[in-house]
């Protein structure tokens, strides 16, 4: 557990550094002023949402191939955390849009595909609670996790494939459309949020392990009490 405590401190430190860079080091935007700083958390949240759903996809494929509960637990943990990050991405994006575009929401390709993505993974979480049998639940969730993943590249590419009012940060060829201090603040935010995602994933996997232990003990208890009857 010592390395986990050390990792928690590393996450805390990286978040502090990214906050410093986003609020004090990076200059305000020429057009949007101070409000542009939402961007550092918005991009980092959305990036981690997409990363989390990619992990769900990998875990779902691995579960269908190997049928071991560990992969199902990883898929569940990553789905839950992905929903938290995508929710944060959509909410911060909406707040930014209110200032930049004058509206809270616009049904344009990036926002619409992100909303569909959020809706699909919330549905996946609901689905998991509806199916009682653990094997059937894991199998259905894995299939749904693979199908839902189709929207991940659509969200990423939507601003390139269709006419969109959403800003393009990464231009063709991987060039970032930002000042160097802003790039540094953005990279720091993305790294710190990715570390935070890993920490949350470890915590969520610990809970899944505890839930499995509890189910085992309950089964033992049931077997003993059923022996009385």
């Amino acid at each position, binding site marked *: 557990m010592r390395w986990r405590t050390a990792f928690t401190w590393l996450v805390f430190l990286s978040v502090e550094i990214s906050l410093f860079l986003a609020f004090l080091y990076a200059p305000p935007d020429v057009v949007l002023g*101070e409000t542009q*700083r*939402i961007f550092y958390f918005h991009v980092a949240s959305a990036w981690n949402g997409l990363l989390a759903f990619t992990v769900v996809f990998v875990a779902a494929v691995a579960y269908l191939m190997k049928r071991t509960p560990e992969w199902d637990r990883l898929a569940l943990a990553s789905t839950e955390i992905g929903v938290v990050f995508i929710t944060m991405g959509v909410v*911060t994006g909406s*707040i930014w849009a209110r200032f930049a575009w004058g509206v809270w929401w616009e049904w344009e390709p990036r926002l619409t595909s992100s909303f569909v993505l959020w809706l699909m993974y919330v549905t996946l979480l609901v689905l998991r609670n509806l199916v009682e049998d653990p094997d059937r639940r894991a199998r259905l969730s894995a299939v749904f996790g693979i199908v839902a993943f189709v929207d991940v590249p659509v969200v990423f590419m939507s601003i390139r494939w269709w006419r969109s009012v959403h800003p393009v940060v990464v231009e063709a060829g991987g060039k970032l459309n930002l000042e160097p201090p802003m790039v540094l603040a953005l990279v720091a935010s993305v790294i710190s949020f990715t570390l935070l995602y890993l920490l949350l994933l470890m915590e969520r996997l610990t809970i899944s392990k*505890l839930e499995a232990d509890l189910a085992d*003990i309950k089964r033992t*208890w049931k077997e003993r009490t059923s022996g*009385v009857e």
Partner: protein
Amino acid sequence: MTLYLFLGYTAVWTALFLYLLHLSGRARHLELQISWLRERVKTEPRP
């Protein structure tokens, strides 16, 4: 205009804080349930 920055910042960290609170609460609840059940399985006489 910094109101929007404040709103965005608050939204992100409130969501993360609440999620961490939920995770730690759930872990504690499970640990308590497990230790209580283990104790019962150990101490209660077999039928």
